[in-house]
């Protein structure tokens, strides 16, 4: 009823290949951006911003990064956590070497380093595929983690072995460090995430995005059609690692304030992978949905017993959360292996034909 595209005619190819050819989708996006930029900042409390929205956006960005590589280019990676770590450490080094430079620029620049490292670890992808490739990315994960611990230069020889975000200002507003207010940090994270998501949407609908999908769907055919596999895959690794690197840098600069090597462990890699798979491989919107599910569900579960008035031990909640998350992952994989993005499309299809489904 409300989701009809009848009567919306495209009169040019330009209109037809717009990001959202259907009016209702455009309205929906504007509404979401309105909520994100106006409603949430106006009404949310600190806890909601720092513990839900900021991590959600950071993880969404990381999930987009991994989705570029795994969902769009078909290269399974278990090294996301480490690539995020490279971004974080690079941003930390940059901002301590150039203390007067704008910290947001440094965060965006840090991705370049993780892109370079990602490309290096992407090299074996020319010869290695699937699960085998996953092992090489595991090598990246463990090797880089080791570097974060064993190269004291990376954390400026801090006795603690951790990186601590320094206080930085921009236009007189504190943007990083402990005094940065949640609302400022939220806006920075929101802008970066939305901006990168928009740019990636552009890339993915064009020539480069298509060449990634060609490699994913049928690498041999792609090669026979003139796609250079190494170049294309390395580019996917680089772009993916860039995004993950920025996400990792945001994670420490605008969310956690300090990070140990163990913050970027294999567990983080898996967390991001879950988001991508549950959200939907090869869907940008799905990355957001997956991140929302995987990050917010446990937070939500923690509150349920309290709000219902049960006195349940903290560890029991933790154990049950693990069980529920695990079971839900299996459940959703069974119900819809293509993730929430596909569920959403099916829903839209139903809406489109409602109330006459046949």
């Amino acid at each position, binding site marked *: 009823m409300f989701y009809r595209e009848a009567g919306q005619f495209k009169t040019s190819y330009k209109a037809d290949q717009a990001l959202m050819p259907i009016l209702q989708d455009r309205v929906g996006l504007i509404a979401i951006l309105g909520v994100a930029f106006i409603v949430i900042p106006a009404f949310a*409390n600190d806890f909601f911003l720092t513990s839900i929205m900021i991590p959600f956006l950071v993880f969404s960005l990381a999930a987009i990064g991994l989705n570029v590589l795994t969902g769009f280019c078909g290269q399974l990676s278990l090294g996301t956590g480490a690539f995020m770590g490279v971004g974080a450490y690079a941003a930390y080094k940059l901002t301590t070497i150039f203390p007067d430079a704008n910290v947001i620029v440094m965060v965006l620049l840090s991705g370049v380093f993780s892109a370079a490292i990602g490309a290096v670890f992407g090299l074996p992808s020319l010869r290695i595929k699937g699960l085998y490739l996953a092992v090489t990315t595991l090598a990246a994960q463990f090797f880089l983690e080791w570097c974060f611990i064993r190269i004291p230069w990376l954390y400026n020889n801090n006795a603690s072995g951790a990186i601590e975000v320094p206080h930085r200002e921009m236009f007189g507003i504190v943007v990083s460090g402990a005094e940065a207010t949640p609302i400022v940090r939220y806006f920075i994270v929101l802008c970066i995430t939305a901006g990168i998501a928009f740019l990636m949407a552009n890339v993915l609908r064009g020539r480069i995005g298509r060449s990634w999908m060609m490699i994913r769907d049928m690498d041999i055919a792609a090669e026979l059609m003139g796609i250079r596999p190494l170049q294309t895959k390395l580019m996917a690794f680089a772009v993916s690692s860039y995004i993950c690197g920025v996400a990792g840098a945001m994670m420490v600069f605008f969310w956690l304030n300090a990070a140990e090597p163990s913050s970027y462990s294999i567990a983080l890699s898996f967390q991001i992978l879950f988001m991508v798979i549950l959200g939907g491989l090869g869907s940008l919107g799905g990355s957001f949905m997956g991140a929302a599910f995987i990050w917010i569900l446990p937070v939500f579960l923690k509150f349920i017993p309290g709000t219902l008035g049960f006195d349940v031990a903290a560890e029991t909640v933790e154990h049950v959360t693990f069980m529920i998350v695990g079971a839900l992952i299996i459940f959703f994989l069974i119900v819809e292996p293509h993730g929430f993005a596909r569920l959403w499309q099916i829903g839209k299809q139903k809406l489109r034909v409602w109330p006459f489904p046949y």
Partner: protein
Amino acid sequence: MKNIKQLALGTAVAIGVGLSGAMTTVAQAEENYVPLLTYRTGPFAASGIHIANGMHDYLKMLNERDGGIGGVKLVTEECETGYNAQKGVECYEATKGKGALVYNPYSTGITLQLIPKAGVDKIPVLSMGYGLSAAAVGSTFPWVFNVPDTYWDGASVVIKYIGEQEGGLENLKGKKIGYIFLDAGYGREPIPLLEQLAEKYGYELLQYPVGIKEMQNQSSQWLNVRRDRPDYMVMWGWGAMNPTAIKEAVKIRFPMDKFIGVWWSAGDDDAAAGGEGAKGYKAMNFSGVGRDFPALDDIQKYVVDAGLSSTDAETMGGTLYNRGVLNSVIIAEGIRTAQELTGKKVITGEDMRMGLEALDLTEERLKELGLSGFAHPMKVTCEDHAGSHPVFIQEWDGKEWRQASGWIEPMTDIVRPLLEKAAAEYAEKNAPWPARTEPCPN
């Protein structure tokens, strides 16, 4: 990309959660709220569970026996961190709005994240014998307390003790001391001090890092120990690392009486894992050994027997359980001191900071608490938030811990300048680090 609308769903869920979070934010009147960041899951649960029990039980006992502190009940809430820094920060954000008085992160990683926030949110951090050593410098870190000792105090005590065993520190010349540690901020903290002492006393320091992933698989480290044949081994371990290390030491037949752990490698389960062979293993400690203390009897009576705790009665009196109790004693005394200082019953984080800074746990006070001999009397000053209090060495006799030495004073003359240097460095690296504006209550 037309399905970006799905964000709406995520946002809707998120808002729902946010509201439920907001509802619980309503501060309760006439109560003092103490969040406990604990971990009963994950690789460090083995140590974390006992600490959590100890902390929980003592505060609960005060509620049951005395009706709280100064007539105001304590509300405690455990938040599971799993030793994970992210979850720790989440716990912090979720609880700080409820009028939290103090945080005890029990993880160096979480502590580091909370240190800069403490001054901003006006909630002190009590990292009892862990965390950032430099935080002992109260003029730089007014909001952080690491009473009774820093790791550097501990490291100096170990060297001092080894010196005693060898008949004097001068005999350390030419000796090899191995240092096996958890390869994280925690285990790396003491290294600068150990290195400095090595220069001074002429022993050789051999390092054996154990990665968090390799905690349960230390055979390489101990093979290296076998090859290097150090005269003493010092351990900075936590969680699953401890029992594994002790087992491996038994396996390579390392003389256990020359193996000394930090106070966090002093768990009963840790030593018990080594079986008969672990007899003679030593560890530092600053909280009471055993359970012959009236306060523990009260815990048994009012809390454990009343079914208000998940504590297994057998584990009461264990090193780590007692450590948790001591932690709660410091919290409780901090609150009491704050109440006395401010005259308020329901206090805030700022009051709590003053209370902790004015903390003076004397022998008499310990006796009143039913904890005579449970800990060395400790006193916090505005300059020194750790106090470098004496610690003792305990020894595993195959079944339980026995005190094996008197109280040993740390080498304050060496530690203090190092602490000040490190604090200055921290402030510089994190410039602009706020200068102390908080008044000194003493």
